[in-house]
Structures are given as C-alpha cells and as structure tokens.
C-alpha cells in the first residue's frame, strides 16, 4: 500500500501524458480522417483508389510495426523528429485510416434519393455534401467514432516500446523499481479504465438513442 501511495503521483502524471497524447491523436485523426472520407466520396475516381490503398495498408500492418518504422527509420532518412511528434504522427496516420472508412461508410449510407433530389434543385456537388449528406451522415457515424476513439486511447500504450513516456512506460518503470507488478499494474488498468469507460458508455448510449430515432424515420 505504501508503494502505491508513493507511486501514485508519478502514475497520475503519466496518465495525464496518456490523456494528452490521446486527445491530440483523436482530434487530428478525426480532422484528417473526415477530410479523407469526404474526398474519397466526392472525388471517387481520383482519391478513391489512393485512399483505399492507404486504408488497406494501414489495416494490414500492426501499429507496433508502424511505430518502429517511424521511430527507427525516419532518422535514416535524415528526419529527426521529437519522439512525441514521431509517435503522434503514426497514431494519427493509423487513426485517420479507420476514421476515413467510418465517414465514407456513413456518407454512402445516406439514400441516393437524397442526392438525386438535391441535384434536382440545382445544388452543386460540394453543397450537397455540406448541407444534405454530411448532416445526415453525422448521426450514424458518432457511435462507431466513439468506439474507435476508445481503441485509439488503448493504442497509445504501444508508444511505450520506443521509450516515449506515458502511462504504460511509467508503469514498467515503477514495477521494475518496486517489484510489485500486481498492485501497480492494477492501478494502471484502473487509470485506463477511467479514461475509456465514459467514452464507451457515451458511445453505447448514442448508439441506442440514434438507433431508435433512425427507426422512427
């Protein structure tokens, strides 16, 4: 117990680091992913195949390997990034691929009749996207987005393997110093749980609410 009391401030600080990394990842990945998702629908022939290849690659490679690539191979190309920036890039790169698929799917799920009647009114392609498709797609993409955010938070623990300090790395340091892995790791699990559970809960609730109003349509 004394061990835990001594280590707690250190772990809390590390947890804050994880939250910071997660928030940055989620915001940037959402921005990039949404743009890619919209582009792959609007400019199907130009960007569609490119984005598909990108998503396919990301899905087919473990995120750990991507982190190694960024961390070890960027310097060999003469690219010396701050450790945090390097891993953040990978996390955003990875998250954007997942999110672009969600956004693309949500847009394509809006019935084609909506596009047709908007065209009939003389709206331009990007206007149809902005005023007709995206607002409708938003409803259906919020629940899967939140699920992915939870996944991305957990993915931030991978960056510990290249020595980027956050909750998981701090946990390893403390367990090595104190020799009390169970207590410390249990605490770390509780920290992750405290971050992820509310998000999962909100996601679940939105899924239910949006789902029911969807049926009413």
């Amino acid at each position: 117990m004394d061990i835990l009391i001594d280590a707690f401030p250190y772990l809390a600080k590390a947890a804050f680091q994880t939250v910071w990394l997660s928030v940055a990842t989620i915001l940037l990945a959402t921005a990039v992913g949404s743009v890619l998702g919209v582009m792959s629908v609007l400019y199907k022939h130009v960007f569609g195949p490119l984005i598909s290849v990108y998503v396919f690659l990301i899905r087919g490679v473990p995120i750990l390997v991507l982190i190694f690539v960024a961390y070890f191979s960027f310097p060999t190309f003469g690219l010396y990034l701050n450790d945090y920036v390097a891993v953040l890039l990978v996390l955003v790169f990875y998250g954007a691929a997942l999110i672009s698929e969600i956004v693309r799917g949500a847009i394509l799920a809006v019935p084609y009749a909506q596009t047709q009647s908007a065209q009939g009114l003389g709206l331009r392609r990007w206007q149809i996207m902005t005023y007709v498709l995206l607002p409708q797609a938003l409803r259906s993409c919020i629940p899967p987005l939140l699920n992915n955010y939870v996944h991305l938070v957990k993915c931030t623990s991978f960056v510990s393997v290249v020595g980027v300090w956050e909750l998981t790395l701090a946990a390893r340091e403390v367990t090595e110093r104190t020799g009390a892995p169970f207590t410390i790791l249990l605490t770390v699990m509780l920290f992750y749980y405290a971050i992820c559970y509310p998000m999962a809960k909100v996601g679940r609730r939105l899924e239910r609410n949006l789902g029911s109003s969807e049926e009413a349509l």
Partner: protein
Amino acid sequence: MNAGQIQEVALRREDKSLSDSALTRSEGARHFIDVNDVEKWFGQLQVLKGINFEVTQGQVVALIGPSGSGKSTMLRCLNFTEQYDSGEIWIDGETVGYRFDGQGRRTVRPESEIARFRSHVGIVYQSYNLFPHISVLKNIMLAPVKVLGHSKTKARETAMDLLAKVGLSEKADAFPINLSGGQQQRVAIARALAMEPKIMLFDEVTSALDPELVGEVLNVMRQLAADGMTMVVVTHEIQFAREVADKVIFMDHGVIVESGVPSEVLDNPKTERLQSFLQRHFDSRS
C-alpha cells in the same frame, strides 16, 4: 407570391438565360422542349428506342404507359439525372447535359452548367425525398439561398407563400417525419417551386400515396397547370391526365405508341396496345 408572379419570374429568368448563354443553338430548338430521337440502354436492354416529342410553353404533357415502358427514364433524362446515349434534348434553346459540335460528337457539360440548368427545372419524385434533418421551411429555403443566392428573409417569405399555396402554412416548423405522405409530397412541390422553375417534372408523384391523399396532391398540380406552368407529368392517373393535360403520350417498351390531345388518345385509342392498357386500367379501378 402567387403563381402568376412565379410564372412571371420564370419568364424573366428565361429571358436572362437566353441572353447570357453562350451555348450552342441550332435548328434543333423549335419548341420549348424538343426531344429528338433519344435512345438509352441499360446494358443490353434498350429502354428508349428513339423518342420524339415536343412541348410548347405553358403546355401540360402527360406520359402514360405500363411499368417498364421507359416513361420515368424519359422524364429523368429531361433534367439529366439519367444520361441518354443518343439523340438530342433541347430545353429553352439549350441542349440538355451535353454539348453537340454538329458533327455527331458530344461532350458532357461541366457540373456547374448542369447544376445551373437543373435549377431552372423543378422535379418531384414518387418518394418525396424531403431532407429529413431540417424543418419543412428550411427544406424549401435551402436551394433558393444556396443556389440562387437569395437572402434568408426573402427565401423565408417565398417559402411561406408557397406553403400557403399548398395549404401547409401551419407545418412550416414541422419536420418531414411528422407529415403524412400527401403533406410531404406537397412540401416537395413547394420546394421545387421555390426555385422559380421554367418547367416542372412530376415522376409518378401520387403512386406512393394512400388513395385518400392523392386528391390533395392532384389539386396542387391542377392549380399549377391552371397558372400556366409548363409541366411534364408521368402518371398512372388517367382521369387526371384527361382533365389537365393538353397532350397525352402513351409509351410502351421504349417507344411512343400514340400521342395527341386527351380526347383523341384516351377516348379513341387507335392501337390495340393502348386499348388494352386503358381497358386494364379501368378494370382495375372499377
């Protein structure tokens, strides 16, 4: 704004588009709408086999025929939501969807031109397709504000006038989901009219409605026809066609079998195909 004014605005806009269009003109455009030898294929299946007809300004033309006859496809070609494979369609002095170089070659017009063209041609579909995420009023205001660049105040006024015209003033702030099918369809008509179109296209607009709701939608269309709107109406309502249309076109298997004034076509059908179509129609109604 009453319908007379709408028509007036439509006429003014037409003058404008005549003067500022640097688009090709040719002998092809003799009437307000000219459909010349239009053919269309869906893969191996030819759905339009050389369609020819014309519509003069203010005319109401009814397209009738059995399912699969190509009448809806023909209508959608008129606002280029369906492409056609050969032939030419002229509306108000412009070719629809394509530019023709006079030597048999054609190129698809840029998206901006097609969108501008469509803003002059109102279309109402069988399944209303109102935008579910915004109110009735905003459904009607969206295109005038975003496409015509009207101020919100002006667009709101126009929208309220049109809602009054289709008898739905009290539903301005309702969402589409809370309206009956007939009410949604009337909003869809108001939404199309808000663009001050030169032509209105109706694609089986009463087919999805419960029988008791059909009348309210037909009444709005009747009013519109009386106000002098040029209309092309795909319909299964033979009675309505007889009463309102200036010309009836009967299509079957991608060709026009008979066309002419309603009294001639509907009361004295010359071809066996139209006779049996009308027979079946009236049998099912009685």
